[in-house]
């Protein structure tokens, strides 16, 4: 059973991710951020639930929709924002932006812009743990669309075969860019794909953060014990389009409205109210604290210099 601090910590993180993403959408609409943004609003329970059982020295790999996971893994918000803005004080000296956030210190290997591109790479961090005989675990995050890429299948097979210490976490928000799940696969539950590789597959309600955590805890424990990988499917909902600015003409307006009923933050909030771990005043406090954290991070980012031409030629080779 989780204690009050742990529960409130998870709640704080979920709200933080939501507010950060909302603010990013806002600044992006104002034209202050270069490139493309893919927000994870509506999906907060998955990264928070999973990362709540990880250590700092565990690894995650993730995708273009990777802000929530990076924040849940504990990356510094100021440097994160600076990277979103493409400034030199960002994690990647401003050369990654939203899609390629990486923080080696916190085990965030680097988010990937190729669907399925990061999955084989996560085999490597898991292999390194095994090679060195430590119990550092890797969680590989990807979406429902990625489970149709060849790399998903190659990776599950090899990870299963070698008992790699990792968890494959499918954040199924039911949309692969502009295509809904029922048009990209015959399957209802993607976790059944695990059976093809001889590993356990679990589907959980990805909007219930404690259920996500429970399943992740089992999967990570399995991995740490050397029992091999698990395919953990967390079913959740994507509130906005594929990218910021996507008008979602391919999606029924009723469905777009409908998904908000599954708000993982409201669900958890209500649960915490019931458990009397949280009160409405507490929520206000949390919101205020988060707002000031974000304000500080934005100020840091906006003050940070834009990379100069020397940044162009740097780090092509070591």
């Amino acid at each position, binding site marked *: 059973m989780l204690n009050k601090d742990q529960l409130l910590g998870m709640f704080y993180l979920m709200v933080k991710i939501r507010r950060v993403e909302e603010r990013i959408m806002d600044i992006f609409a104002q034209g202050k951020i270069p490139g493309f943004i893919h927000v994870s609003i509506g999906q907060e329970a998955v990264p928070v639930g999973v990362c709540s059982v990880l250590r700092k020295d565990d690894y995650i790999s993730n995708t273009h929709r990777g802000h929530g996971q990076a924040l849940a893994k504990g990356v510094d918000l100021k440097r994160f924002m600076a990277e979103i803005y493409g400034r030199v004080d960002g994690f990647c000296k401003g050369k990654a932006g939203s899609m390629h956030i990486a*923080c080696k210190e916190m085990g965030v290997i680097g988010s990937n812009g190729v669907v399925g591109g990061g999955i084989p790479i996560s085999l490597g961090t898991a292999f*390194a743990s095994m*090679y060195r005989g430590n119990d550092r675990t890797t969680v590989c995050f990807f979406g429902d669309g990625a489970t149709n890429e060849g790399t998903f299948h190659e*990776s599950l097979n090899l990870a299963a075969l070698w008992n790699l210490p990792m968890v494959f976490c499918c954040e199924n928000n039911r949309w692969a860019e502009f295509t809904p799940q029922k048009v990209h696969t015959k399957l209802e539950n993607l976790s059944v794909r695990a059976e093809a590789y001889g590993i356990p597959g679990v589907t959980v309600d990805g909007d219930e953060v404690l259920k996500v955590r429970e399943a992740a805890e089992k999967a990570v424990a399995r991995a740490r014990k050397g029992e091999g990988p698990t395919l953990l499917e967390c079913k959740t909902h994507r509130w906005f389009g594929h990218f910021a600015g996507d008008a979602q003409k391919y999606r029924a307006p009723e469905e777009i409205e409908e998904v908000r009923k599954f708000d993982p933050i409201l669900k958890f909030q209500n649960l915490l109210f019931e458990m009397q771990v949280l009160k409405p005043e507490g929520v206000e406090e949390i919101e205020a604290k988060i707002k000031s954290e974000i304000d500080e991070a934005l100020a840091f980012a906006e003050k940070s210099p834009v990379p100069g031409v020397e940044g162009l030629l740097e780090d*092509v080779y070591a």
Partner: protein
Amino acid sequence: MKEVRYIRSITDALREEMARDESVFVIGEDVGQPGGSFSATRGLLDEFGPKRVKDTPISESAIVGLAIGAATQGLRPVAEIMFMDFLTVCMDQVVNQLAKARYMFGGQHKLPVVIRTPCGGGLNAGPQHSQCLEAWFAHVPGLKVVMPATPYDVKGLLKSAIRDDNPVLFVENKALYGLKGEIPEGEYLVPIGQADVKRPGRDVTIVATSRMVHHSLEAAQILTKEGIEAEVIDLRTITPLDKETIFQSVEKTCRLLIAHEAVKAFGIGAEISAMVAEEMIDCLDAPILRVGAPFTPVPFNLERFYLPQAEDVIKAAKKVLEY
């Protein structure tokens, strides 16, 4: 000195580097128990054990991806892709991931990955098992591409490649695997990025790679009887390209031809030609010519019409000298 075959030089290099550095491991299809489909990794499993010599399923993207992830954590993988042609199967991992991970993550990672792979025809292996695709990878910033032609160079360069903190595509040649040559008994390295003048000459510069180095040397022997002294440069490394050695030679001979087994059109010869024309036009006494394969897939059973030979190099050298 001892005489070894090119393939055994490779095994030597792998063994030495694995003994020297515990973070080096070998991964690929058939590399462990079977000792490698071309026997490159023979004996390594027995010597170093299954932790460090990994047989994989037929999964090129998983092989390269695993190597990438492991490298970010300080391991030094030497991955084998059985035929250069099969790099196409894992292009995303090589081009979008491996080549770019250091740059796009702001220098946080080093990617000391070596991908070993044999190119080349001559065995009637057909269009999907005989290609020379080095031009594709030379075109990708972030990769180094090495193409050794001799037992001496292959060992020295493989050792350097393994010690290099950057991704190195190590292109061997299957028709050269049996080639015998002399190598020192002891430890030696050949630096990446340095071409080698295999035969000095004053009349024409022949820049060659891989098997074409041998055809060019044969051509040079024949040309010398007609009073033509060809300078044969073995590039050894495609990228980073050793421009200096090429420039020095062209300054001396004023005539250049480039010989590679890869398809002539859009091959590395085109890049070298353009580069020299850009920077040394006043020096040149003739157009720059290239010897390469015709614009067809590598044919099964018709290789004698396809693979460039010494006589093609001779013809091109004489043509360059006509001007």
